[in-house]
């Protein structure tokens, strides 16, 4: 975990509310693993005060990519940055996705909803290198919410899409697409990131179908490295649950440890 106050935005791409930055930072990029994240300073002023957590979308030895959506003041300021601008980043943070050598030759699904697709590109690459047969399911409200579809295709990854309004791919939630695909071929593992209701539903499917599943959780964070205890989630320990930190103990947890909240 390194603070690089002068990482440089080498490339920026925008699709409506969605943005991708490639950030040059050899010191942070080096050891990053799929599922880990960065804390990004969006302004050098005190308002907004806190850094914003961003999944690592891709990396090479010199640089990292983040993919984000404007959801408020912080991400809006971040989106205004330009190629060549310096960015103060902290990372890589948290524990990433986990798999062992037995994944070689196995069939796995990566399920992403909306901006939750962010960590799954990096993961797909690494899982493929580990010999897994990767299929990506990418869901959004509408076609403009699937800006990364082409990127996955270009990387030669098997990808199927869903839109709630039917403007592209399967019509309906990505969880319904998942259920349909599982009925055809059950995967050895699921790796999931998306909105809470989508992850909860995926968790239910995984539990019912007895498929090991890992979820990358999203939370507002104070610090990102375990000092503030602000980003907790109820995690099972034995019969009970305790508040565990998403930033330090996660952000990736396995489906059987997560106690999903009731909605509303």
């Amino acid at each position, binding site marked *: *975990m*390194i*603070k690089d106050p002068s990482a440089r935005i080498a490339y920026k791409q925008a699709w409506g509310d969605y943005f991708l930055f490639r950030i040059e930072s050899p010191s942070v990029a080096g050891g990053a693993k799929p599922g880990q994240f960065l804390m990004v*300073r969006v302004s050098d002023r*005190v*308002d*907004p*005060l*806190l*850094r914003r957590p961003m999944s690592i979308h891709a990396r090479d030895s010199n640089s990292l990519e983040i993919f984000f959506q404007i959801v408020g003041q912080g991400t809006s300021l971040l989106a205004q940055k330009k190629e060549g601008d310096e960015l103060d980043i*902290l990372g890589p943070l948290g524990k990433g996705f986990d798999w062992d050598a037995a994944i070689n030759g196995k069939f796995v699904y990566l399920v992403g909803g909306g901006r939750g697709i962010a960590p799954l590109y990096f993961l797909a690459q690494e899982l493929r290198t580990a010999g897994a047969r990767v299929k990506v399911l990418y869901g959004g409200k509408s076609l403009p919410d699937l800006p990364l579809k082409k990127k996955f295709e270009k990387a030669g990854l098997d990808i199927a899409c869903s839109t709630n309004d039917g403007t592209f791919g399967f019509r309906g939630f990505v969880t319904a697409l998942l259920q349909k695909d599982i009925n055809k071929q059950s995967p050895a593992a699921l790796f999931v990131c998306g909105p809470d209701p989508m992850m909860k539903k995926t968790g239910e499917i995984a539990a019912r179908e007895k498929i090991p599943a890992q979820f990358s959780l999203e*939370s*507002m*964070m*104070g*610090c990102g*490295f*375990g*000092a*503030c*205890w*602000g*980003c*907790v*989630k109820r995690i099972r320990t034995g019969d009970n649950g*305790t*508040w565990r930190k998403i930033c330090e103990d996660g952000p990736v947890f396995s489906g059987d440890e997560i106690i999903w909240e009731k909605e509303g």
Partner: protein
Amino acid sequence: MVDLSVDLGFLKLRNPVLAASGTFGYGLEFEPFLDLNAIGGIVVKGLYFGPREGNPPPRLVETPSGLINAIGLQGVGVEQFAKETLPRLRKYQTAIFVNVCGASDEEYVKVIDYLNDQKGVSAFELNISCPNVKKNGFCPALDPRSTLSLVKLAKQASRLPIIAKLSPNVTDIVEIAKAAEEGGADGISLINTILAMAVDIETQRPKLANIFGGLSGPAIKPIALRMVYQVASAVKIPVIGMGGIMTGADALEFLIVGAKAVEVGTANFVDPASTLRIVREIEGFCRTKGHDNIADLIGTLKL
């Protein structure tokens, strides 16, 4: 060479910058970011006797230039702290203050009793001012009588100096500070967070599960400074100032109004090396202004 050391009477610090409780974990979390020996001290996260669960999320909400938290003092308890953390903190020369919590008078004493015998603790900061553990932000530091009696009790139990950490959520901060002094406190630290709330207009629900939380960050600095000035002018024991300090300049304001040292809190989340940066900024200011000794600046407000 600027002499940054300050004397709290009961303890000499290498410089006046401490990390504030609740924002610096148990200290070790910050090893990757700075040399812990280079700061004046660390006030570790509040400890109850046993582990504590804390409040349900959402626990944080960001507000203009500020942060409202309602963590509820989730933590490991004294035993785990003494066994796992303290041995690793001992290798540092930095002063370690333990922020002492209790759900009852007895629990404060139990925590102090346990830690009295542990090597490596320089002082206790008595947390009588957390707004997030009782209904409506209630805490002992809201009342001069309970402040006095709790400080007295802690002082009797303790072999180490006691610093009473005060709440800003009172009508007259000086009255509370004097009560802490009368109770035998060796020092006073202030301010804890300001009781606050935020509402989601879409759902019409509070943004924090706890409804209320404590506001910190630059938004509260002017209030903190005013209170530190009032208290430092009214008591004889040393005062440690805090509230929204982000820079060396912020810290210097507190020293000029009479704080002997400062604690840096929320800034640690934004820039984990804030404490060290602030030490350097204070040093830079002294060098530029020709002050050989930071102590010469303390309490020099000109009226």
